[in-house]
């Protein structure tokens, strides 16, 4: 029997967790709510009444549309670059012993342990010294630089958990190194690479600090919002942010449904394949 102390503790834990989750969501509620605010003038600070007018035309502000387009483009290019460069680095680090590993590990680790403000400032100083004009290209360079390490770490984790014997078996059966890589290694690390790409694009699209140093005259979504704080962030920003949340929720919901169906099919197949053992193994909850 559980004591009253345990019960209190267990309830306390649940309530504490609920409050913590609520804390995470308070500003999100505000962002969503104020996308429906019938604001007067440019300020969107106080609740004036319900309207759908901002939802009717979220791209009414041309600067905002450009900023968003830049953010998405930068994230796409930087993600592709960082994912390719980082995945190959992870392959080399996990698969091959070579001299100078320590230096490479350090070079991958250091950007993660450096505050963004230092990374951004250092890069800008280089661009200034080399008289490079900052803008779209320099943002891409900066984003690629600081997302590579995240890709390496993520893909490395996947590679380390992988059974090497499968690749060896493929090569023993006469597959060339390239065929083995294409048909065995790549499909097996694909979830890790996808996770890394997702992480890289999320970091890139949301970055303010490094971007603010290297953007020149180019606007991105976070830069636009920060710049707009003085005169009031236009409600269209809230509309776009809310839309993104809804899209993510739908995608995640679909993913859950898909996984559930796959799991159900698996269970059915197991039950057909091994009726006795399936009945003997206790359900894990």
């Amino acid at each position: 029997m559980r004591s009253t102390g345990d019960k209190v503790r267990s309830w306390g834990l649940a309530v504490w967790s609920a409050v913590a989750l609520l804390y995470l969501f308070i500003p999100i509620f505000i962002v969503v709510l104020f996308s429906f605010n019938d604001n007067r003038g440019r300020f969107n600070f106080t609740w004036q009444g319900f309207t759908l007018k901002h939802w009717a035309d979220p791209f009414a502000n041309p600067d905002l549309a450009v900023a968003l387009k830049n953010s998405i483009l930068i994230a796409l290019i930087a993600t592709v670059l960082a994912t390719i460069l980082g995945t190959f680095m992870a392959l080399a680090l996990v698969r091959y012993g070579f001299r100078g590993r320590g230096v490479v590990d350090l070079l991958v680790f250091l950007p993660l342990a450096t505050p963004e403000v230092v990374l951004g400032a250092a890069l800008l100083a280089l661009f200034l010294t080399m008289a490079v004009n900052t803008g779209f290209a320099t943002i891409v360079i900066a984003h690629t630089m600081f997302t590579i390490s995240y890709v390496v770490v993520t893909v490395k984790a996947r590679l380390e958990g992988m059974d090497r014997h499968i690749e060896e078996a493929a090569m023993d059966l006469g597959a060339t190194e390239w065929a083995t890589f294409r048909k065995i290694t790549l499909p097996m690390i694909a979830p890790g690479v996808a996770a890394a790409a997702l992480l890289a694009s999320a970091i890139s699209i949301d970055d303010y600090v490094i971007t603010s140093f290297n953007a020149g005259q180019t606007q991105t979504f976070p830069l636009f919002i920060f710049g707009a704080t003085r005169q009031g962030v236009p409600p269209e920003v809230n509309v776009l942010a809310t839309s993104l949340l809804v899209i993510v929720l739908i995608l995640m919901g679909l993913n859950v449904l898909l996984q559930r169906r796959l799991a159900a099919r698996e269970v059915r197949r197991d039950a057909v394949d091994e009726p006795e053992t399936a009945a003997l193994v206790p359900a894990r909850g």
Partner: protein
Amino acid sequence: MLRLSLRRRRQLLPWLFLGPGLLWLVVFFAIPLLNQANVSLQSGDAETGYAFNWAFSTYTNAISDYDTQFIRSIGYSATATVLCLIIGFPLAYFTAFRAGRFKNLILLLIILPFFTSYVLRTVAWQLILSDNGWVVERLRDVGLLSTDGRLLASRTAVIAGITYNFLPFMVLPLYVSLEKLDRRLIEAATDLYASRVTAFRKVTLPLALPGIFAGSLLTFIPACGDFINAALLGTSRQYMVGNVIQSKFITILDYPTAAALSFILMTFILVGVFLYARLLGTQNLTEAAF
């Protein structure tokens, strides 16, 4: 065509794989840092330009001029990290052990706020804590805040903002290390007559250390260099070293001081990470964390 022996190819292949990424990191990370070291030792002024002359005075001046912001950064970040741990540990524990079939849903809820822009979430806090906002008015009604009392533009607001923004970075590594934990060890401890509290202190907590380590670093390091929270939720009296570096670089064009401050911050963090790893006692912690 040049045919290389298999052995030779084996030696070249890793460098072929590493090459492009490594080159990118060297050119856009290592060289900028070295260049930054050079800049930090220059002297001069924004109009006539700066020249390298081993000006170590930049460092001593930077420290004496901005020690307040520096100590403030460390204090705010440390406080926020501890708060994240206090708020996040029970949440991670609940998710790992008690959430049952809601586990994935809760994890989803923890990462969902990430999909709203960081700056926008902070702007939302600005709105929530604003002087004529609902929260401040209610607090004034019940007398918890004086009639001219404010929440915005205070130390509390900045620390709360940092805590908020980095909370998921604390919760996720904590969750990962708790989830991996072999629950039979806790059962064994209670079977051997350890109280629940003792079992938690002697089994759960030590095994969650890699998560605590990773979470603290993922919270503390970005918090130390953050300037968005101080800029949006505070005033110049709450400015952190990130704000100084940013304004020195972008507005005042005092590159040497900004570079020197960057280096001091980076050195402090690296030394701090090292000492923290030693303090928690496991040498492989860094590897476990990254």
